């Protein structure tokens, strides 16, 4: 697809964008400051070490965690509670604590009350107390998300099956649900009610309002053969086209992938539980066993910074190794 190799000047089958896509894919913990291309990159560790001005000069810094899968205990990671705890330790060690966390779903493996209990208990160790949630399919397995909604949407004015929006420091955040009422043969789905709401929700906003959308399943076609996409995401993105800066944060695929399309940056986060294979590199998606010493390098979290006056948000992935 031309999106990946559009300028092959050196006839080596790779161009600048394609190369950068791969860099993002590798999940090397780089800071991406994106505005129609990649302007700068540095690791999260470098920022912390050098006392870089970025955190202090940042108007808003928040953190994305995803796919903690509490309750999973198979070969790919027999102690997902511990790796979740390590991720929280990393957050607590940040020189400037994030204003809040976003959890992009799959809190649990099997939607069991005791799994939610464990998650909540471990989360208490996090210095940052505000957390905004969207559900993953693992959180709504047997009850259509009733338990999830009771526990995690108390502090927001959620509509329908649990979608909502809020404003922080001039940034408009939209949490979407694309894991419920899925149709046979299809992908993730937002549904007409949610899309109608979204259209209304952003109608009154100025085009210079930075938008952050978060949802569990990617809102772009990462790999539909594995269900890694959302069937009606195009309509959602249509309502966001006029905005100068849109950042879309997703989970579900347990690896870092990034795509830039006009003013929209799509980004998927690592899991804190276990990695999954890169698209199409295995018979099926699912927990991927890697050598024990490699596991922590494939788990992680994502930090996002917004500075007023800059059109794009900086997205930084860092792993747990």
């Amino acid at each position, binding site marked *: 697809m031309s999106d*990946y*190799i559009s300028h092959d000047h050196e006839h080596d089958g*790779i161009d600048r964008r394609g190369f950068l896509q791969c860099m993002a894919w590798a999940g090397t913990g780089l800071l991406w400051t994106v505005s129609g291309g990649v302007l700068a990159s540095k690791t999260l560790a470098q920022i912390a070490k050098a006392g870089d001005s970025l955190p202090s000069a940042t108007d808003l810094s928040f953190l994305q965690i995803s796919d903690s899968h509490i309750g999973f205990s198979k070969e790919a990671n027999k102690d997902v509670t511990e790796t979740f705890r390590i991720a929280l330790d990393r957050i607590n060690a940040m020189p400037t604590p994030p204003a809040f966390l976003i959890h992009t779903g799959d809190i649990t493996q099997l939607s069991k009350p005791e799994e939610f209990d464990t998650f909540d208990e471990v989360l208490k160790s996090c210095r940052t107390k505000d957390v905004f949630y969207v559900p993953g399919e693992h959180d709504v397995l047997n009850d259509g998300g009733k338990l999830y909604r009771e526990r995690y949407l108390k502090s927001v004015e959620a509509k329908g099956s649990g979608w909502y929006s809020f404003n922080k420091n001039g940034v408009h955040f939209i949490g979407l649900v694309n894991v419920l009422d899925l149709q046979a*043969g299809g992908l993730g789905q937002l549904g007409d009610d949610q899309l109608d709401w979204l259209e209304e929700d952003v109608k009154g906003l100025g085009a210079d309002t930075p938008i952050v959308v978060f949802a569990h399943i990617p809102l772009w076609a990462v790999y539909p053969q594995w269900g890694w996409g959302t069937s009606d995401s195009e309509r959602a993105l249509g309502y966001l086209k006029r905005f100068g800066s849109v950042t879309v944060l997703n989970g579900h695929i347990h690896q870092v992938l990034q795509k830039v399309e006009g003013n929209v940056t799509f980004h998927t986060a690592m899991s804190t539980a276990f990695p999954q294979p890169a*698209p*199409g*590199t295995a018979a099926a998606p*699912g927990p991927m066993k890697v050598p024990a010493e490699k596991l922590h390098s494939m788990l992680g979290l994502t930090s996002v910074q917004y500075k007023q006056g800059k059109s794009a948000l900086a997205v930084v992935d860092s792993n747990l190794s």
Partner: protein
Amino acid sequence: MTTLTHKNKITALLCGITLLNLSFFAIAGEMKDTDTTTAKQNRIEIKDFAFNPQTITVKSGEKVTWINRDEEPHTVVSVEKQFKKSSALDTDQEFTITAGAPGTYNYFCSVHPKMTGTIVVEK
């Protein structure tokens, strides 16, 4: 990071995206002859995000059992709500129904809706 690695990754991605437009494929499961004289086990294995066999032909009144061999939970849900749905099946968990009136019953996994299957019930 070597160029070769990048090329491989890009090639993989390109292949994936080429297939993208074919994602809504039709289910063309083969009709299998399941005629046996011994007590018959109608078992459907869930493995690698697929129902195997994808289409199974059974007699009315026979039992049909699914077993999940993935490390990922799956469900069995009738598209037309013609039979009770399973709860989420964890690894090695089973779910059994008794085939009802003759006809074609399409089902899917409500967690991973790409996964679809068909039960053909004969008299």
